[in-house]
């Protein structure tokens, strides 16, 4: 009996040692590398997956735009717009079930990763990160919004989301003509840019079939041009305006993934804010909220990697800490103690 309990204890000890080892391994990891590879793989998978006959369906929570024929999934916004544009009578009949299923599928995808879809999976986000790396290589500094501009501009994504939801219903109700179909898609820079990945530049044109189309597609082209300029000077330029990001935020609490902060461990040093691509100030300043996910957040977790306080920020799945801030990890990632003599850019 005595031996038996000792064995159990030893096993438990082994397990907890193992657990700690894994935890340390993850917390000390080089997030940049991990992210780069995940982003690259998912970019290829979602943008070119069609070639391999991969199909994730039409309710995907990221900008996998079907205007590019070879995507392996379809952005939920386009399906949503089409579904909402059904004539009002049908919309409120049992035929609404497919819409409901669409929403459920979207949610099923979404709850798995929460907003990490933006930071790790979205090809449109990845593209912006690549443009950022290009700018870094050239050695140009990025720009930031002032707090005032930030607060003003931050509302735009909700305006876009309203366009996504409202205009199709208006079409269905017969208030506006069919020329408005998929209103947001016509304006969306992803429609113009995504097909370019497979060599299709045909979306860089204005549709002159009606005044409405002309205006919307012209907007689309200007947004696409703005996208390139914007994301060259500003990190994750488009994400700030993305209606998908706004839609995510509405459902953020349903996810199994949580982004948490322990305010009592925070010294408000602002390292997290400094590295945040989205300029989210609460990440540093809010020491009261435990749920620190904000509407602009893309869950890239750069802030967790840049936080020197043990467990002040952590990324949880089912309330289990998967990735936590640690001083040890911080020092490894920031190359503290190495590179004292400047040898160029080892920390890139």
């Amino acid at each position, binding site marked *: 009996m005595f031996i038996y309990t000792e064995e159990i204890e030893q096993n438990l000890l082994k397990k907890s040692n193992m657990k700690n080892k894994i935890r340390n391994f993850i917390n000390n990891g080089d997030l940049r590398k991990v992210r780069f590879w995940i982003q690259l793989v998912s970019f290829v998978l979602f943008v070119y997956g069609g070639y391999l006959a991969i199909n994730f369906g039409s309710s995907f929570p990221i900008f996998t735009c079907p205007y590019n024929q070879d995507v392996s999934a379809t952005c939920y916004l386009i399906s949503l717009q089409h579904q909402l544009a059904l004539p009002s009578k049908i919309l409120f009949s049992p035929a609404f079930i497919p819409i409901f299923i669409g929403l459920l599928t979207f949610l099923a995808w979404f709850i798995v990763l929460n907003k990490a879809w933006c930071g790790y999976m979205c090809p449109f986000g990845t593209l912006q990160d690549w443009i950022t790396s290009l700018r870094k290589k050239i050695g140009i*500094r990025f720009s930031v919004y002032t707090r005032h501009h930030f607060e003003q501009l931050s509302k735009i994504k909700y305006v876009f989301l309203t366009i996504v939801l409202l205009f199709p219903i208006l079409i269905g109700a017969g208030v506006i003509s069919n020329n408005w179909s998929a209103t947001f898609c016509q304006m969306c820079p992803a429609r113009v840019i995504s097909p370019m990945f497979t060599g299709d530049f045909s979306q860089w044109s204005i549709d002159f079939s009606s005044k409405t189309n002309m205006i919307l597609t012209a907007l689309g082209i200007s947004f696409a041009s703005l996208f390139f300029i914007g994301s060259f000077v500003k990190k994750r330029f488009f994400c700030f305006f993305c209606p998908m990001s706004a839609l995510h935020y509405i459902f953020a609490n349903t996810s199994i993934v949580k982004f948490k902060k322990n305010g*009592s461990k925070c010294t408000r*040093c*602002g*390292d997290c804010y400094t590295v945040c691509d989205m300029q989210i100030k609460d990440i540093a300043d809010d*020491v009261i909220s435990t749920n620190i996910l904000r509407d602009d957040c893309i869950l890239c977790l750069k802030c967790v990697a840049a*936080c020197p306080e043990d467990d002040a920020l952590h990324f949880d799945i089912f309330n289990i800490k998967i990735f936590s801030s640690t001083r040890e990890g*911080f*020092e490894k990632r920031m190359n503290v103690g190495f590179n004292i003599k400047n040898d160029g850019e080892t920390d890139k």
Partner: protein
Amino acid sequence: MSIETNHHIESPKEKQNRHKAMEAISLLNSLREDFKAPIESMEYFYDLFERVHCKHESLHDDKTKIGTMCIQIPSEIIYALDGVPIRLCNGFYTDDEIGSDFMPQKACPLVKATVGHFASNNFTDKPDIVFSPTTCDQKTKAGSMIESFGYKFIDVDFPRTKDSEASREYWRRSVKQFALDLSKFQGKKLTKANLKNAIKKIGYAQSLYNKLSDFRKNEVVPILGLDVFLVTNAFFFDKIDNWIEATQKLISELEIRAKEKISPAGKASPRIVYTGSPPIFPNYKIPQIIEESDGIIVADETCSSNRMFNDMVAIDEWNMYDMMDSMSDKYLKACTCPIFTKNEDRIRRVIQLVRDYKADGVIYQAFAGCTVYEMEQRSVLEAMEKEGIPILYLESDYSPSQGGQLSTRVEAFLESLKTRRRNKK
């Protein structure tokens, strides 16, 4: 008939030096001899203070010395511009007495001592220029006085609130201005590579301090709080490379001590978090009383120690302005100086230190005349009471005379902590 006079009349400067040397050596001797299991590698630090304060050796003859009045002046920028930061906060009673002629009677002894030091113009490493962040009233006003003594003295605007976005912007601008002023004074351009190197170096020093602190989380604490104060105080003026080397040695010795469970403290010594007005060499009056009365300081929340090292700079892209901004934020937003309007950050910090270092209680010292610490006492005491953390508030100054009364109070407090711990068991 001629009388040979062989005796020499002591000049005021010599007298000041002699008095300061006496203050310094009495503390150093006590550190060397009064505690069990002394740490060998601490000798570097004892010797350093002895050389500077008793033998009046200067350390930085060949370098431009940049005086700073508070921790908010980024030493990264000073190192990047090839200067040596010398923090001029002063802990000598001798200088406090000299300063009393210039300051109001009830002023803070730290500011008085600093002013006294400047007034005496008696430095081992005289600052070539002084930068002073406009922190508390007394330091701010002392600036113009020090300038009138003939020093090159520059105010660096520091905001008194830190929650608004305006204050962040304001301080970032101030730091940029400081960098410009210093770069002009030094006739040297601040480059990306230099600043990055300096940030890395300070970052390394910070990580060493944090490693040192980690030992104090152990159940058997291998180092005195007094020794740690000495190590961090040495960072005020020591050659940084020497400091790094000595601290590395200290850490390796502590590793062995931790393994062998050697401690200068007793088994039942109450663990104390120290907060309030900064202990600055040789005014270690309160820490000395605590540790001589069988307490052990496991952590502190003061600007002469923990606050200098805790927050490390992180940067996404090593551009000049990003480095500057990230650095500036640390010196403002993470600062828990009581001069700010509100200070929940400081309270949170003390509570967290108590938890992390498994402390039994907090001792809060305020210098008589340090209005801001005196004023904040109430809110801190209330918060600690809410958390169920025992706290003792003490008022002290630099005079050597009030020892008895203070040690009675500290002893009683430590005794109560011991009883509390026993009852818990």
